């Protein structure tokens, strides 16, 4: 596999941004090494803060910095960034509409051997519930680099979810991404697969397998689960009517839920959600954890075939 971890993309992009714009700050909480902000802290110490193992404080400090015109990226793991400091995000970032970014590595099952305590399976759902929050998960290294920059340019709260392990390249350097706009990887008419994050490579394989069987597949990279690209989802409902969502996140409150909400309100179309079956992970190989939850090429293909019957 040729690929690279999205957390590496974050580390590189934030350094490039910091060099260009002195208002870009990184607020670390003692896991800068794991979240790839060490080069930033070395080269740009004047734009770096490490508050120690104190995530709630990190978020509050970032909010204060934002009131003074800085663009802070609070950097930690998904579990802590979405839940340890979720009320600080609500009260001090989203409610006052401050320009704070929460950039988290170790989203989903990728810290597989660390076990459930470190696997953020519900992070995007938690943050999606807070008014004013934008929630992103890039599918590969190139997408991650572009979306970090898009997040920096966007005025407002953004949650960015990265992962620990290398993911296959899907895009190349020239691909362009816009917050809130799905990236169409394949055009098709029999079934729409809507996925995001690391799992995109699984969805892509499933789409190819379905194509080999003579089906026409539309594949969307829904890197922004909030605000959801309603136009793109509406088009799937109107033009295809059969949708499969795939995510390395709880099937509750993530991408699958967001799509279902739209389909239900329209009153037409069917959706199959593939994702974490509302259960915690465990220490195990990443592939095993995906399989246990049916997040596999095979399950996507079979789900599509069931819809065709």
């Amino acid at each position, binding site marked *: 596999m040729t690929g690279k971890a999205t957390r590496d993309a974050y580390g590189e992009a934030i350094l490039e941004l910091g060099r260009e714009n002195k208002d870009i700050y990184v607020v*670390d909480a*003692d*896991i*800068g*090494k*794991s979240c790839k902000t*060490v080069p930033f802290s070395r080269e740009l110490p004047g734009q770096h803060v*490490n*508050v*120690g*193992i*104190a995530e*709630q*404080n990190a978020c509050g400090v970032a909010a204060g910095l934002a009131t003074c015109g800085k663009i802070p990226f609070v950097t930690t793991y998904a*579990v*802590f960034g979405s839940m*340890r400091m979720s009320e600080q995000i609500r009260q001090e970032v989203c409610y006052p509409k401050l320009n704070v970014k929460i950039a988290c590595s170790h989203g989903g099952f990728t*810290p597989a*051997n*660390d*076990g*459930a*305590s*470190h696997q953020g399976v519900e992070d995007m759902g938690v943050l999606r519930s807070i008014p004013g929050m934008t929630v992103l998960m890039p599918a590969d290294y190139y997408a991650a680099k572009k979306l970090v920059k898009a997040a920096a340019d966007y005025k407002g709260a953004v949650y960015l979810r990265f992962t620990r392990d290398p993911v296959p390249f899907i895009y190349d350097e020239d691909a362009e991404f816009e917050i809130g706009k799905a990236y169409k990887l394949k055009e098709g008419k029999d079934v729409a697969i809507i996925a995001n994050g690391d799992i995109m490579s699984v969805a892509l394989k499933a789409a190819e397998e379905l194509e080999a069987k003579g089906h026409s597949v539309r594949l969307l990279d829904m890197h922004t689960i909030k605000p959801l690209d309603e136009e793109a989802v509406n088009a799937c409902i109107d033009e295809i009517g059969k949708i499969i969502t795939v995510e390395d996140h709880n099937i509750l409150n993530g991408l699958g839920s967001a799509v279902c909400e739209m389909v239900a309100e329209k009153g037409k179309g069917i959706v199959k959600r593939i994702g974490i079956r509302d259960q915690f992970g*465990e*220490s*195990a*190989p990443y592939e*095993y954890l995906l399989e246990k939850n049916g997040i596999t090429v095979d399950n996507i293909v079979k789900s599509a075939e069931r819809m065709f019957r």
Partner: protein
Amino acid sequence: MNRNDKAVMLREKARELRKTALIMIHTAGSGHPGGSLSAADFMAALYFDELNIRPGDPTWPDRDRFVLSKGHVCPILYSSLALREYFPYETIYTLRKQGSILQGHPDMKVCPGVDISTGSLGQGLSTAVGMALAGKRDGRSYRVFCLVGDGECQEGQIWEAVQSAVKYELDNLVIIVDNNNLQNDNTCDVVMPTGDLRFKFEAFGCEAYGIDGHDMDQIVDVLETIRESEKKLPKVVVGKTVKGKGVSFMENVVMWHGMAPDKEQFDTAMKEVEEVTV
């Protein structure tokens, strides 16, 4: 057993714990050796002397509780449980493997002897307060021991927990601080100075002691002093320690916070731990 023999026995146990933890982390290929090794002497004193526990009856209501608030160093806890025969010794080879009772961070649902699941820093001490409070309310005489990291003391929740312990006069709670002056990114002094922790706990109203956390005589002494204390205050032992203690190339090296030794490093490490005279 006289005092001297006891200290010798406990130092020998600490050696066994260090070896077992190293085997586990090397076999798993990941884990946290630094903070496991710095806590080994305290863990030996607790599991082989101080704690009133029944390995054959891990949920005995009157047992002393142990809370590993810095859950990432579970290899040293699992080693203690393995050597006290809470589960078969061979289980150590399954650390972090699929289906193992030895999860990457302690899981009370599956591992006998784990009194609470931990892994997110700063939270364990509050659960220890709850256990100590229940002991008081139920008129039980067990005690609760809680191991916290010095970096972990940067979490505000630690101090919220201490307030509760002081308010409810939890003299049945013993907080042990592994003061190795290292955390994930760097030394505590660089990341976020913790200051004089013994002084801080005292200022919050605890009965706090400062010792050398690798000197078994001092560990045994302070635990005895605490056992005999009649003050209605939560107890704290701040142990000055060396992260990676016992393995020269791991000592005080930040990288060994969360990295597994390869075969060669493992062999050297085992040899060094073996060669220490107790």
